[in-house]
């Protein structure tokens, strides 16, 4: 068990099914109403389609596939967030119910480094609730690796 360290930062708290998760506010581009979801053939299981925003094509993540959330919320908005891989930045849209909350809070980092999932950057303590801080880049990379492993297993 590591000693917790704290940092004061801004976070966007988003409801997902029965729980809430948060993203670092600097990674959130905007919250937009649901637009036309466009589809073309692909086999990335956790992407449900794409939207066009600011002349960009933005993949829409399937919340169930991305977060493993079984109770997918009724979504009315897309949270457009940025994630980085190496020197490249990209956007993705996450369907959310809309009750997003901007908060300044102390993040509790590395509660239990051994058991903590890699895509969880830490936690926010809001009242009695402990809210995961998601690292979108690590989450997407993890899903990509899982997807590639599933494909390899299916083809072997």
């Amino acid at each position, binding site marked *: 068990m590591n000693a917790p360290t704290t940092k004061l930062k801004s976070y966007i708290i988003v409801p997902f099914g029965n729980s809430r998760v948060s993203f670092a*506010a*600097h990674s*959130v*581009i*905007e*919250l937009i109403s649901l637009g036309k979801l*466009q589809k*073309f*053939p*692909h*086999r*990335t299981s956790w*992407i449900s389609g*794409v939207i*066009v925003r*600011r*002349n*960009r*094509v*933005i*993949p829409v*993540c399937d919340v169930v596939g991305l977060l493993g959330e079984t109770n997918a919320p009724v979504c009315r908005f897309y949270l457009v967030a940025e994630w980085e*891989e190496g020197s*490249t*930045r*990209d*956007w*993705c849209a996450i369907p959310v119910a809309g009750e997003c909350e901007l908060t300044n809070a102390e993040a509790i980092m590395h509660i239990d480094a051994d058991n903590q999932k890699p895509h969880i950057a830490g936690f926010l303590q809001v009242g009695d609730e402990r809210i995961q801080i998601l690292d979108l880049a690590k989450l*997407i990379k993890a899903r*990509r690796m899982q*997807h*590639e492993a599933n*494909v390899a297993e299916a083809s072997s």
Partner: protein
Amino acid sequence: MKIVSSELQLPARRGRTEAVILFVVAWQTFAIAASAIDEIRSTDSFSLTASEITLKSVSKVKHRLRRGAKWYYVVNACAHFELPVSPPTLVLVLRNSRIAVLVDQIDRIETISRLMVIPRCFSGPELLWYRGLTLIDGNVIPVVNPSGFLTENEIMQLDVLDSSASVPVQSEITSRRSDTHGVSP
């Protein structure tokens, strides 16, 4: 929240235009560079020069097409993109390759000025299928990679099949249009 920097909105390529042919497979529109197409044939016209070929590991190829001294492997686009079965009426013979593609119909020719890279979230074979994405009338159209229809390894596997195993198909393609090779919905 933050203001979007102009840097982020740059297309993958700027200042170039490219003629693309829009084609339809199972009600899905795709684009392919016009320069990548050598010939567009009706399936009626190629049936006499096609023969059947069966390789379990490359099931999207059911025919090969003789054109001059070369054999072209005919890929069913429905099967390639895992789309519902639809009746092909045209064959796109690709340039500088040994691949031909069965498609439902040609929509039109367009000129595009932007080819956007596929977002990095995608991780499946679509990275091989497409050169990128383009926007036409607000619609996202995937621009196919001509060399993505068959890998070198798949072509090699098809090559090693004994040509004597192939039999003339006669008019089978036109007579069996309902029996195409896509994936049933």
